[in-house]
């Protein structure tokens, strides 16, 4: 009996567009990433942190509501804290256009910057799913023989990396902003807090593009599944370790760390120095607290090395793109 007893049928339907095919690559890669247990755990942690952030914003908003549980609770605190919260509440009531903007800008700077490492960790864990596995299994030949180009392949993989970061970073940050302001006592919080959201989006989207390209470059660096995450984490940790040493020896060396460069960009975008000055002028007790910050930290907050960071990241991106172009070939 011939094997092809099941007859071959011709197909004459309409083909999907190129964006659909790119989407298929992204979807497939994202599903492969989500099969990684550690990514799922990071996802849960990130969204839990978003809940906490929203709860904190709710707490701040409740300070404006007389007789709320939060206000009652604050009244039971020690004199210093009562004084701080009293001034803070007065500031929120008196100048919401400045206070809400400044408070949320500072809060979302810290939330964004401190949530980023979790996202970088998640990206490191799923690096092999981007390009490494396709190089190892020669699946890259299959992609090249289908109706997609190398650019379509990159775009699909990039979108998957972007989605991972969106789920573990920008998504929770934006959700925290949205829920936090939804729970605020006045609707005008949305308007006053818009700058914080714009800063989050500018910093988040630009950093995600940079990190995703770097991740793809590292993913294409080797065809060994254990090598690429190892390289990613070593680069990251070395960067963290170098920063305090390089500060007093070779300051430019700090720019080999992508985390440091991204933080400088965050400082520039969120304009933290200005916000701290505003807070210091508006709440005297807060000003005393800020006065205790070390001068070098204060200088770093007020005058980030923005152009050095941009140059460092540009060089990293150039290397990543070169690796991708060199390595992602059919054979």
């Amino acid at each position, binding site marked *: 009996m*011939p094997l092809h007893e099941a007859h*071959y049928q011709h197909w004459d339907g309409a083909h999907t567009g190129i964006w659909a095919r790119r989407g298929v690559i992204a979807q497939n890669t994202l599903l492969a990433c989500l099969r990684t247990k550690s990514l799922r755990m990071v996802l849960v942690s990130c969204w839990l942190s978003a809940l906490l952030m929203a709860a904190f914003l709710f707490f701040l908003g409740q300070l404006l509501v007389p007789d709320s549980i939060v206000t009652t609770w604050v009244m039971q605190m020690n004199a210093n804290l009562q004084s701080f919260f009293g001034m803070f509440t007065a500031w929120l009531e008196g100048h919401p256009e400045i206070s809400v903007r400044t408070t949320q800008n500072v809060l979302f700077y810290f939330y964004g910057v401190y949530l980023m490492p979790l996202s970088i960790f998640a990206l490191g864990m799923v690096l092999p799913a981007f390009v490494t*596995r396709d190089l190892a*299994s020669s*699946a890259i030949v*299959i*992609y090249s023989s289908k*109706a997609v*180009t190398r650019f379509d392949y990159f775009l699909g993989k990039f979108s998957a990396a972007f989605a991972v970061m969106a789920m573990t970073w920008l998504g929770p940050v934006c959700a925290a902003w949205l829920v936090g302001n939804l729970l605020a006592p006045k609707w005008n919080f949305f308007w006053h807090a818009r700058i914080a959201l714009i800063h989050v989006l500018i910093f988040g989207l630009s950093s995600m593009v940079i990190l995703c390209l770097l991740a793809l470059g590292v993913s294409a660096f080797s065809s060994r599944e254990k090598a690429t995450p190892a390289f990613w984490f070593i680069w990251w940790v070395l960067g963290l370790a170098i920063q305090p040493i390089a500060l007093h020896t070779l300051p430019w060396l700090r720019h080999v760390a992508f985390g440091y460069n991204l933080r400088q960009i965050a400082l520039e975008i969120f304009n933290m120095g200005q916000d701290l000055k505003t807070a210091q002028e508006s709440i005297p007790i807060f000003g005393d607290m800020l006065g205790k910050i070390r001068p070098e930290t204060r200088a770093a907050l007020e005058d980030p090395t923005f152009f050095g960071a941009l140059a460092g990241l540009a060089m990293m991106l150039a290397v990543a793109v070169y690796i991708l172009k060199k390595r992602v070939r059919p054979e």
Partner: protein
Amino acid sequence: MTTAPVIETEGLSKIFGQQRALDNVSLKVSPGSIGLLGPNGAGKTTFMKCLLQLQPISSGNARLLGREVGREGREIRKRVGYAPEQNCHIPGMAGCEYVTYCGQLSGLPFQAARQRAHEMLDFVGMSQERYRKIETYSTGMKQRLKLAQAIVHDPEIVFLDEPTNGLDPKGQAQILELVQSLWRAYGITVVLSSHLLHDVERVCEQIIIIARGRVLVHDSLENLKARKRGAAEVVLARGHAELQAACRSQNWLCDMLPNGHLRVEHRADSLNPLLTLMHGLHLPPLEIIPSPNALEETFVQALEISHAPA
């Protein structure tokens, strides 16, 4: 059915460093089942990859299905299937998922891709194993899967690179039967690359023999088989000198080979004149080995060229 050439190349060359993998290949190939025959390293795979744009062309130009290679990559590959020689499966996927995914990459909507994936897996003879992870497949299953992914989007032409590699004789026969049916029953042009004369002879109607990146011959199987030099190797127990003298009187070349056999160039389509002559001389042959046809001869020539020092 259209008879316009499916493959057209003009002065196609591919150079890797110092080595010319393809050397000025000019061809016009009509639809059908095409055998790309040649020893290992002859340039068969490179030729296919250049047509599919998996390798950039060094010089010359090529057209596939009437479209310029190098300009309309996506459009060409939408209508082309390719089963590479090496394994190139995506780890972690089940067979049916993989074929569906390949269909989607070729532009099929998800529903159609899934339906066709199952049809193609039926067609290549895979049953429940399609739901298993590809990593657990045997070589034979992987070869079938490669074939299924190459035809899932209903291509007009399919390139199969050594599809019987690593298979036992039964598996080889099954795969060749499937490949044969693609053109004969369903009108899909097949380009089968192989270093096995037997495989190509069994499946293909047109033959292209390549050696050291050059095309030695491109003709139909029928013509190549019919084309014989009109020579034979004669094994005799006695009377070698008599036969040599008789051949000379007929103006035929007759040489003694190192193995003691006589090689007679009788220049006839059949062995009858030679047999008549021997009958007249009362020389019964122990054995007569007819000369190989042009297909075998050119293939042997290709092997010799590839083994000769560069």
